[in-house]
């Protein structure tokens, strides 16, 4: 199971992820008035415009709602703009019906991605900076799937 504690490198940004019981989760915000969930966390609610929001930990597993494959190197501000390019997946993962999160997708074979497939949160070192340090972001990968919720 991916966790911040056992992952080397530097997170691309603070405030996106949190370890809970040894497993990494995305950190969202939830409106105290209307329960709308938003990722990344924001200080007001886009549904009811209320400003009473609280931190909310998202599920680690979900289903792929839609996807594409990024087939050409993005321009700046993409950090890995100088590196040799390999296509990567991008899509939306439905997390427990609370929110659909946009994410990079990693898979041994990107052509195997399908709408509706089970996905789980992983940490992806997607870029190595000039000092040799890995820059890490969240991603979703096809769920290796175990009955105990992925506690391998």
């Amino acid at each position, binding site marked *: 199971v991916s966790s911040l504690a056992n992952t080397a490198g530097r997170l*691309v*940004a603070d405030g*996106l992820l949190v370890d809970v019981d040894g497993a990494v989760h995305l950190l*969202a915000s939830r409106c105290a008035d209307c329960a*709308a*969930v*938003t*990722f*990344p966390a924001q200080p007001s609610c*886009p*549904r009811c415009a209320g400003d009473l929001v609280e931190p909310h930990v998202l599920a680690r597993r979900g289903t792929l*709602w*839609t*996807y*594409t*494959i*990024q*087939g*050409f190197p*993005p*321009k*700046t*501000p*993409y*950090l*890995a703009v100088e590196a040799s390019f390999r296509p*990567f997946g*991008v*899509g*939306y993962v*439905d997390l427990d*019906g*609370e*929110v*659909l*999160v*946009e994410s*990079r997708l990693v898979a041994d074979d990107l052509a195997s991605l399908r*709408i509706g497939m089970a996905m789980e949160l992983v940490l992806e070192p*997607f870029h190595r900076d000039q000092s040799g340090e890995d*820059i890490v*972001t969240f991603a979703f990968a096809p769920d290796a799937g175990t009955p105990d919720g992925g506690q391998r």
Partner: protein
Amino acid sequence: VNDVAIIGIGMHPFGRTEGVSGRAQGAFAARAALRDAGIGWRDVQFAVGGSYEGGNADALVADLGLTGIEFVNVLNGCATGGSALAVADRAIRSGAYDVGMAIGFDKHPPGAFNADPSEYGLADWYGETGMMVTTQFFGAKIQRYLHDHDIDPSVLAKIAAKNYRNGARNPNAWRRSPMSEEQIASSAMLSDPLTKYMFCSPSEGGVALVLCRADVATRYTDRPVYLRASVMRTRIYGTFEVFAPSLAPERADGPTVQAARAAFEAAGIGPDEIQVAQVQDTEAGAELMHMAETGLCAHGEQEKLIEEGATEIEGRLPINTDGGCIANGEPIGASGLRQVHECVLQLRGGAGERQVPGEPRVAFTHVYGAPGVSACTVLTC
């Protein structure tokens, strides 16, 4: 409340024009529109303009004449031209002015836009991790749409091929060579299921429209086109848009649906009455989805319409008769106004080789852009 007429149109050809700035292309379009209306810049009482990368639109006063008029700059992503027109429309409709100009121009470097996350209220990490790419949205949206409506992806190459064919009949278009469905389908896969030649590219160009109070339009022209509605909308909660790090679990109707519905309602004209339409074809899938989102057809009906040739210039619902964004490229400031320029030509019967037969009298335009904006018009003659 006054009605609004379009009495002059002007355009700098779209594409790549080395050594000519975006602003100069805007000035070229403005002069052409003034000539078409038979008036001078001194007769223009106000202007609304937009440009994303060509400088502030109101800098045009240095080229056209320092007459001291109100000149408002607008910026709404790919809907900038449509927004400029909606603001200009309201200035005349309200009675504030009698004669004005809506104008847009741009000059973009080649390749996909590299948008700055901070301009869209997003944090740096979104762009740094490679997600600030508009093409991803269009790939992901059409992927889901084809799945939901059980549409064969081969229809995407058919749409693009139609727009290249139409562009070949348009002297102002950028891409003027027809391209086979096979060439389109087998070009580089940019954002699955969309290939290189299914996408439009950022380009250059300028378009200007001269508007006036409808009741005085025949002083200027014997062929006025009436702007029956010009509406711009942003997204509501629950829609699926460009540059969205997360989405609500329930889906709502997007800004295209909202803007089109409001435009048809304001015009008192139904989508079934439209005889020629220009809809946002950032890529072939966008044309497919926008056909239904605007109300021109039902969801899932597109494949049949395309198969039977309904969206061709000679069909019963001609779409993107000037080649659309796919054949013209997309200078953001000018793109929405290009669509109106094309519809005015079609309603005047002046579209030359690509004229829709049967003297169309009712037209529709639609733009869509980041981060979830749309503008629509309904035009009659």
